[in-house]
């Protein structure tokens, strides 16, 4: 363990901790844009600059290893000037029509500009082409600050490696290989890049249907398969409008394309079946029935089949969308009630 003093607060942290990690222990907040926990520090946005006594240069808190006895200052005039300078540069190439940006109110860049008093943009940006080809999300390079959180997420967390920086220097943009459209690439549209984006550069198309301050976040389990990913559903006017991955034990802040973009629309679909339906043999039409009637019917039919052909004639196969608990119950019913071991589920997506 080493001792580090941050803005006057001395804390003990493990050898090898970064200044940023030590600051967290000390309860001192250092602003970051490109930093992604558990991923090799990118150190590219240069927002987390801090001053360490005895060092001539400012250092990036996210990457710099703390040393025993370090005395760190995170709010000196020099530091604040550097951070403001970085923000001014970012804003000089960033569209400022925040009112119409889906990320308005959730934008880290906006928050930091507010905090550091960055108002006017003394330079003009260059308009770059928007990639709207993906069905679920949009990339607007004019809002991109090239923090590479999306790239690092795609390469190091989901391990898909669909995107990277293309071009060089001021012309840099994020895109699939060779500048091809997002839709034509090997991208699986999981949207983890979108969730990693601190600005409005990568936004879900669904974000256009709500504003962040309108929604209530409800923590739940994704119903799509049995992995049990945790996410927040965004509820507006009693309807689910979007989801956001939560840091669950099985998903650690990630989701798949189905979980993020296909797991909840059916909940409020007009065609959704909300009561059991029994087919009238005479007319061939379905009619609504109560649960007791429906379950009695199914139970009697299974019992009849079992009596006639034996339990081995029956099998229980659970849908992958079922929860673990439901799948457990189904196999229990198959084994105990049907007296059959013919049971499985398709939760292998």
């Amino acid at each position: 363990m080493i001792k580090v003093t941050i803005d006057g607060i001395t804390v003990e942290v493990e050898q090898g901790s970064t200044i940023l990690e030590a600051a967290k222990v000390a309860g001192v907040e250092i602003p970051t844009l490109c930093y992604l926990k558990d991923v090799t520090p990118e150190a590219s946005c240069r927002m987390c600059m801090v001053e360490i006594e005895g060092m001539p240069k400012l250092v990036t808190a996210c990457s710099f290893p703390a040393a025993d006895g370090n005395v760190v200052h995170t709010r000196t005039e020099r530091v604040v000037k550097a951070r403001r300078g970085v923000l001014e540069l970012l804003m000089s190439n960033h569209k400022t029509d925040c009112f119409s940006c889906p990320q308005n109110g959730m934008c880290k860049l906006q928050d930091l500009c507010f905090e550091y008093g960055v108002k006017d943009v003394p330079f003009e940006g260059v308009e770059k082409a928007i990639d709207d080809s993906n069905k679920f999300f949009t990339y607007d390079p004019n809002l991109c600050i090239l923090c590479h959180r999306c790239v690092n997420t795609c390469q190091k967390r989901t391990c898909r490696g669909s995107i990277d920086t293309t071009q060089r220097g001021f012309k840099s943009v994020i895109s699939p290989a060779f500048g091809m459209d997002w839709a034509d690439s090997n991208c699986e549209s999981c949207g983890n890049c979108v969730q990693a984006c601190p600005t409005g550069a990568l936004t879900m198309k669904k974000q256009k249907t709500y504003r962040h301050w309108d929604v209530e976040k409800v923590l739940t389990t994704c119903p799509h398969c049995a992995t049990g990913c945790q996410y927040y559903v965004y509820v507006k006017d009693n309807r689910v409008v979007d989801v956001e991955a939560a840091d669950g034990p099985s998903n650690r802040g990630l989701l798949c394309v189905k979980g993020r973009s296909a797991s909840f629309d059916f909940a409020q679909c007009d065609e959704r079946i909300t009561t059991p339906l029994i087919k009238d043999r005479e007319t061939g039409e379905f009619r609504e029935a109560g649960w007791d009637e429906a379950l009695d019917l199914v139970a009697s039919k299974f019992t009849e089949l079992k009596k006639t052909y034996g339990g081995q004639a029956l099998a229980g196969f659970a849908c992958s969308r079922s929860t673990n608990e439901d799948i457990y119950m189904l196999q229990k019913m198959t084994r105990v009630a049907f007296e059959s071991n013919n049971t499985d589920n398709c939760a292998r997506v």
Partner: protein
Amino acid sequence: MITIEQLQEIKEKNQDIVNFRKEHGERGNGKYRSHVLVCAGTGCTSSGSQKIADKLEEEIKAAGLEEEVCVIRTGCHGLCALGPVMIIYPEAAFYSNMELEHVPEIVSEHLVKGNVVTKYLYQETVTEDGIISMNQTNFYKPQNRVALRNCGVINPECINEYIGTGGYQALAKVLTTMSREDVVKCITDSGLRGRGGGGFPTGKKWQFAMGGEPGVQKYVCCNADEGDPGAFMDRSVLEGDPHVVFEAMAIAGYVIGANQGYIYVRAEYPIAVDRLNIALAQAREYGVLGDNIFGTGFSFDIDLRLGAGAFVCGEETALMTSIEGNRGEPRPRPPFPAVKGLFGQPTILNNVETWANIPQIILKGADWFAGMGTEKSRGTKVFALGGKINNVGLVEIPMGTTLREVVENIGGGIPNGKKFKAAQTGGPSGGCISLENYDVPIDYDNLVSIGSMMGSGGLIVMDEDDCMVDIAKFFLEFTVDESCGKCTPCRIGTKRLLELLNKITDGKAEMEDLDRMVELCNLIKENSLCALGQTAPNPVLSTYKYFKDEYIAHVKDKKCPAGKCKNLVSYHIDAEKCIGCGLCKKNCPGDAITGEKKQPHEIDTAKCLKCGVCMTKCKKDAIYKA
């Protein structure tokens, strides 16, 4: 695999051949009575030296001399301005500006009859008392070729010639008689500092990488991604003496416990890449690279990795990222490569010129090397002279030589009798040295203290016609183009800085813009991720420091004192001098000049493209810039 005894045999067989190639060189047991060394460096190759070498061989054969005279294609001789060049031994006759038509005469007169054809010689070597060696000329005399010692002397495609000069002896010495600590001590004591720009003590760097658990995979890398505009020191070493780099890297591999080296070389250096590949194959065949070198149990091999042209890949962490197969972008330091470098393993990286010094330091000793140069910058430094200088080329001078000596004496002064204004060292990362520092001894620390840096060795000379704001703009355009785009200050800051400079050279800037410019420079310098960004504002800051008046003239008076910035210059015709010859009118690409024959002409400034063609065509000096 050859043994050390076999290495000695090869050396003895070949040393007479290479020893012959110097002033008063002894032929010894050498087969040929004459050696014709034709420069096959990039400069001379592009001015046709290969054809000249072919023609020489053809003529020599026709004269029946092929058993007496050999033609050797060597690396760069340095005097690129006079290329193609060649030297014929034993006379040490230095022919320059060679043309194909000269070849038959040189063969029939010089090689057959023994009469040096003085009219084709480098004229500085021709005196009333006969010819002098090139080493007596102003260009070569102050030089001390250590890193370049074999360039222009040996055939870089022949390992035997390298061994003949004492090649691979240092490796043999290290592997058989020196401990790892001895080697590091020797390099540390020599005072050698990294020649790639940073000037970090080489011995210290090696020492950092020595530690760690035994058996840990380590790497040795060579930075041959020389990207500064106008710099070609490393290229010349690779083209002229590739084995020296292998030998030095193997020595470093022994010291730190690495068995694998990588040379990261620019794909834009095709001749260097070819020669490296040839040399690599020969070194492996002889077993001086590979398993169990000289039977000592030490194994070391080298692979080439070709760069795809990004300047930033010359930065050490970006270079390693690129070797790993990723987009060449720098990584934050710490961790430093000596701890966590290539593929996350301890790695040392030195540039070509640094490597080229190593074997000789081992053989001749630390004291020998430390005896050259200044107190804190030992040894010699290779510079690529370019810009407004007569002897454009490559020079190797002891550290501590003054800029005046380099420009006035070695460089042969400035063309057309113009006055020296400044020199840029360190390329886009460096700064300018003005007349007031003309006599400051050039070494790492002095250059930094006057706002420049050694850099890899590009030295670009500017004369009174050069506008310093324009020069700063030139270098900044380069960094804007070459910024990788990873970190904010470099990606956006340099672009903004360039826009400010454009504003200044367009005459649209206000005085406050100069303050903003300096502030922006400091922001980029202090906050960028890697050395590319941290040094990118240097050309602006140093020109602003030494030529503030010029900046102010652009901003306040809307004038470019050097007459270089097009938007601040207009061309006029002096009616009294103009004789109405019409030459200017005829050559004007913008139809901006009007006037009757024999009547004074006029330039329509609205139509004028400011190309300056009229000015060069006018025989009466009637056209002036204002």
